[in-house]
Each structure stands twice: as C-alpha cells, then as structure tokens.
C-alpha cells in the first residue's frame, strides 16, 4: 500500500471518489428499501426507490431562506466531512487495492475516533440554529452515544486482542477462508455486544429518542434546509452505509466483492430494522441505563472470553 | 513491719508531712471557697517543708552549729544534715510569696466577681 508520486495520490483520490459514489448510492437505495419495508409492515405502500435521490436534488436547488451564522452552515460540512473521512479510513473491499481507500493512514482506532468528528460538527451547526429542540436532540444523542460506546469499545478491544492488531485490513484478512472464521462465529460474545451497540448507533427504535421522529420532527436536522439538508441527507446515507461496512469488516468477514458487501451490509442493517419495528421506544435515560447493563456485561464477558478461550 | 515498730522520729515527721500534703490537696480540690483553697495550699506547703526537714534528720543528730557542744572535729558525727534546713528556709519564703500573691488575687477576684467561689470563675473554657 505504498503510494508514490503525485499521480499515485491522484489516482488514489479518484478511486476513493468512486467508492464514495457507490457507497452513497447504495446507502440511499437501501434507505428507500427500508422505508418500503416498514411501510409494508404498517400496511402502507411506501416511497419509490428514486425518492431519496429526488429529495437530495430538490434540496440542493432550493434557495436558503434563513440565516443562523457561519457555524450553522459549517455544521453540515463537518457532518459530511465526518462521513467521507470515516469511509476514507475504512478499506471497503478486501484484497482490492482500488477500494482500500486511505486505510494506510490509520487503523481501527482512527475510524472510531473520527466518527465523532461529524457528530461534533453536526451538533455545533444545529446548536447555532438557536432552536432548543435541536440542542435537546443533540444532548440526548451524545448521551446515548457515550452509553453504547462502552459495549462497543469492549467488543473492539476483544477483537483487537483476538487478532492482535488494530488494522482493519488485517482483521478482515484473519477472517478469510470461510464463514467459520468470521468473528461472529469465533468471538460471538464480542459480536453480540457490538451488535447491541450497533442498535444504538443506528438510531432506530428502541433507541431513536434523540431523533424523536414524531415530537421533534427529525431531530437535530430540524433547522436545516435547502443544500444543507441535502448534505445531511447525503451523509445519512453515506455514514450509515459506512458504519455497516465497518461492522461487516470487523465481525462478518469483510467482503471480497461489491455484491458480497451489499448482501452482508443489508443483512446487518435488517437486524436493526427488525428489532426497531418490534420494540417500542426507550426514554433516553432508560436507553442509557440499558447500555450500561446487559450490553456492557456482555462486552466485559467478551474480553474475558477472548482471554480465557481464544488466546490461551 | 520492722520500720513501723522502731518508728524513727523522722518517720513520724515525714508521715505527718504527707498527711498534711494530702489534707492540703484535699482542701484545694474540694473546697470551693478561694480562701479555703489558699489555706489548703498553705497546708500542703507546710507538709512539704516537714517532709524536707525530716529527710535531713540524722539519727541522734543535733543542730549544725559549731559551738562548745559540737566541736568542729566531731561535728560530722553529731549534727543533722544542714542542707535540707537551708532548702526549707528558701522554700518557706517562696511559699510565703506564692500565698501572698494568691491572697491578692483573691482580693481582686472578690472585687470583680463579688464572689469567692471557684466554680463561678469559669468564664473561659473549652
């Protein structure tokens, strides 16, 4: 993964742009698909697949009617920079130099920390709007984040111990050679903890109060509009897909091709959807307390498990 | 028991001294009236002086003054110890001084407090 010369870097950027495009499109499509599934469950018809694309295009060409100050406009920029950057540090397709992105810049640790970047920027932008609802949403979202971060961190530590590396590429490499080598099989405890954290991370019911789709129209983005909203929607698709890719890489053996990637990520996504449809919503403090109990316990067990069983 | 039977004279003085000291202490501790406390002190002081004198006694000795009765050559065998006598002289004077100051305190306390009861003098504590 040695990149040399300006040309090398330029082609790297080009490759990454392609990845970006694919992943974003995939994210948007999947979003629409999920909407349709939920609609079916609830007995509605649902949106057409093109709807997200139309939404974004429409928003981009709308004129801005209000002004909240510089930070307000920078918020979505931070947000999408977070999404793009996160994707940039994740190798998407295993064994394919073209889609390994910029994963040589940093390891899993970098990805996890950089995921905060977008959230922080988003929070700042929404805060600048001056609307208390957005601040409340952020407060809740950040709180929930700290909570699911615990089982997630434990699970990550567990697999880092297991594979003795922080490099995502190497983690994927270690899972090659059949499903029996996937983390979900070899270290199911950690996967369980991580998937519980994943529920919180995706912001679906029962952990969707910070978005509060009913009370606070769509949570933090509530104040955004036009191109800003467009950026946000783009990011929602992109970032969501990126997280799925990350989980796939860490726990489900990664992907050697786009098709495998799409199937795997979709299935992972479905976990959140199914649970979300089946469960009522937690209040935010209940949600936080939940993460501190069972998922954390499982996370702790995962480390014990990996120390006792796998590395002995 | 031997000592009790023979009962040397100085032991009697010594014990009397001790009894006086105890009496004096008892007075200082139990009597609430300042003047009585001062009397207690005097008793104690006197007791100590008696103890001191008795300590200096040498069996069969006489006053340490060299004169015809006590020739210089035999003086060392005949006289009592002069040192406690000298000390007691000093101690008496000191006791006197303390008593005088105590009495003047009592006088002043009576003027300021209109009482001579020691348990009324508890303005400062803790």
């Amino acid at each position, binding site marked *: 993964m040695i990149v040399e010369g300006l040309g090398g870097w330029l082609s790297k950027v080009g490759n990454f742009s392609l990845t970006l495009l694919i992943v974003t499109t995939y994210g948007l499509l999947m979003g629409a698909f999920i909407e349709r599934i939920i609609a079916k469950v609830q007995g509605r018809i649902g949106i057409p697949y093109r709807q997200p694309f139309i939404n974004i295009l429409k928003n981009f060409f709308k004129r801005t009617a209000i002004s909240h100050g510089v930070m307000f406009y920078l918020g979505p920029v931070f947000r999408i920079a977070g999404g793009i950057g996160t994707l940039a540090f994740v190798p998407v397709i295993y064994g394919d130099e073209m889609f390994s992105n910029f994963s040589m810049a940093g390891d899993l640790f970098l990805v996890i920390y950089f995921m905060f970047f977008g959230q922080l920027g988003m929070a700042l932008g929404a805060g600048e709007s001056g609307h208390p609802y957005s601040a409340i949403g952020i407060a809740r979202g950040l709180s929930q984040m700290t909570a699911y971060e615990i089982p997630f961190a434990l699970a990550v530590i567990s697999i880092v111990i297991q594979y003795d590396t922080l490099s995502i590429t190497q983690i994927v490499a270690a899972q090659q050679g059949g499903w029996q080598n996937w983390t979900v099989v070899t270290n199911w405890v950690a996967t369980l903890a991580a998937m519980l954290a994943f529920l919180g991370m995706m912001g679906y019911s029962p952990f969707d109060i910070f978005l509060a789709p009913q009370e606070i129209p769509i949570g933090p983005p509530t104040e955004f509009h036009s191109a800003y909203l467009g950026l946000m929607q783009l990011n929602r698709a992109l970032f969501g897909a990126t997280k799925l890719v990350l989980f796939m890489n860490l726990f489900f053996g990664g992907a050697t091709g786009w098709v495998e990637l799409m199937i795997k990520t979709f299935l992972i996504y479905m976990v959140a959807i199914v649970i979300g449809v089946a469960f009522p919503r937690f209040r935010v403090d209940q949600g936080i307390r939940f993460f501190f109990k069972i998922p954390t316990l499982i996370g702790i067990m995962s480390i014990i498990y990996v120390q006792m069983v796998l590395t002995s | 028991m031997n000592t009790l039977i023979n009962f040397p004279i100085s032991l009697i003085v010594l014990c009397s001294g001790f009894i006086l000291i105890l009496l004096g202490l008892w007075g200082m501790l139990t009597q609430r009236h300042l003047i009585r406390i001062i009397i207690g002190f005097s008793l104690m002081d006197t007791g100590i002086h008696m103890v001191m004198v008795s300590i200096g*006694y040498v069996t069969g000795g006489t006053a*340490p*003054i*060299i004169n015809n009765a006590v020739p210089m050559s035999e003086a060392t065998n005949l006289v009592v110890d*002069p040192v406690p006598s000298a000390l007691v002289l000093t101690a008496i004077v*000191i006791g006197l001084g303390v008593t005088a100051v105590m009495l003047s305190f009592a*006088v002043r306390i009576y003027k300021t407090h209109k009482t001579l009861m020691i348990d009324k003098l508890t303005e400062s504590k803790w």
Partner: protein
Amino acid sequence: MMLGLMAIIFFNLAANYTENTSLSKLAHYYVEKGPQEIGAANIVTAVVVTYRGLDTLGEVTVLFISAAGVGLLLRRKKAEQNNNHKKINSVKETANTHKSSSEIVETATELLLPMIILFGVYVFLNGHLSPGGGFQGGAIIASGTMFLLLALPKSHISRLLIAITESLSGFSYVVVGVLGVVMAGGFLDNRFISSGTYGNLFSAGAIPLIYSFIGLKVGFELSAVLDRFRKETSNEEDDPV
C-alpha cells in the same frame, strides 16, 4: 479516689524510708569544711549565704517580686494614691481616727515595737553564729509591723521609705555579690572581707553584711505586703461598691 492513690504513693515513700544514719556527701563536706572555709559557726547559714548563695539571692528576689506583685495587683487608682501619699516618717498615727485604739494598746505598742525591731536586728546580725539569720530577723521585724497594724489600724507606713530600703538593700546585696567576683573566688563569695575571729560578731566574711541587707529587705518587704492588704481591706470598708 485520686487522693487515695496519692496516699498510696506517699505510703510507698514512707514505707521505704529509712532514717539517715550519716550525713550525705554534701552535708559532710559542709560540716567539715564550712567552718574553715566560711568561718560561720552556723553551718546552715554558711550553706544559705555562701554555698547556696544563688538560691538565697533568688529567694530574696522571690520575696521582692511577690511584694511587687501584690502591690501591682492591689494598687489603687492614681487619685487615691496621691491622697494617701503623705508622710515621710516611718510610723505615724493619724490624728483624727474615728475608731482609735485604746490608750493601753497605744502605749504598749509604742513600748514593744522598738524592742521587737531590735530583736529582729539581733537575729539577723548573729545569723552566722546562732540559729537565725536574715529571713528570720526580717520576719520578726515584719511581725512588728503586723503588730503595729493590728494595734493601730490607722497608722501609715511610708511607701517611699519601704521602696528606698528594699531597693537599696537588694542592690547592695547584688553589689556584695559582685565584690565577691572581683575580689574573691566568685559571685557571692563572702570571703572578700577577712573571716575575722571565728565565733565573733564580725567574722565569717561578708555574711553579717549580707544578712543585714537580707534582714532589712525581708522586713520591709513583708511590711509592705501587709500594708498593701490592710490598705486594700480598709478601702473596701470605705467604699463598698
């Protein structure tokens, strides 16, 4: 209870006490060497004035400061002091007492007082020869004062005289002590005056001199203390607050 325990302790002392049958090392030295070194027949005096002269100086100081202390505590306000600050004569009866003593008492006092004082002087002057000494003599002089105050309650004693006497006698004592350093072996060494003839009045070096100072000082100081208490109580009667 505590006193009971104290009693046990004292009993312990008494039970273990055995009377001395010989002199202590110190006493032995004093009795043996005292008459020659100091020239005083009364060994106690030799010990008091010379061997333990520093004690005695301290003792005088104690008396001096307790007199001063009593004076300080029982002082009166300035105005009163000035009123009482009158006569120079040592003893004087106030003329217009409304409760004067009887004639017999007055006469007896005038007769006895000089004798008492004279006896006191005798005692301290012969301190090195016979039982007695400065303190004893001083006490006798003070008892004279006591007698005077009891017999003639309204009589005045001059503060100034007392002050001068006690200051000068005390100072002289110190000077004598210093002379001991300069002219003899050390501070309070009484041998800078020749020992004289053993057994005489003027013998034993400076002891008679020292004892005279002590006697005067003790006498006047005790008198001053007595006088203070008297003034205080009479003041009390005059002016019950």
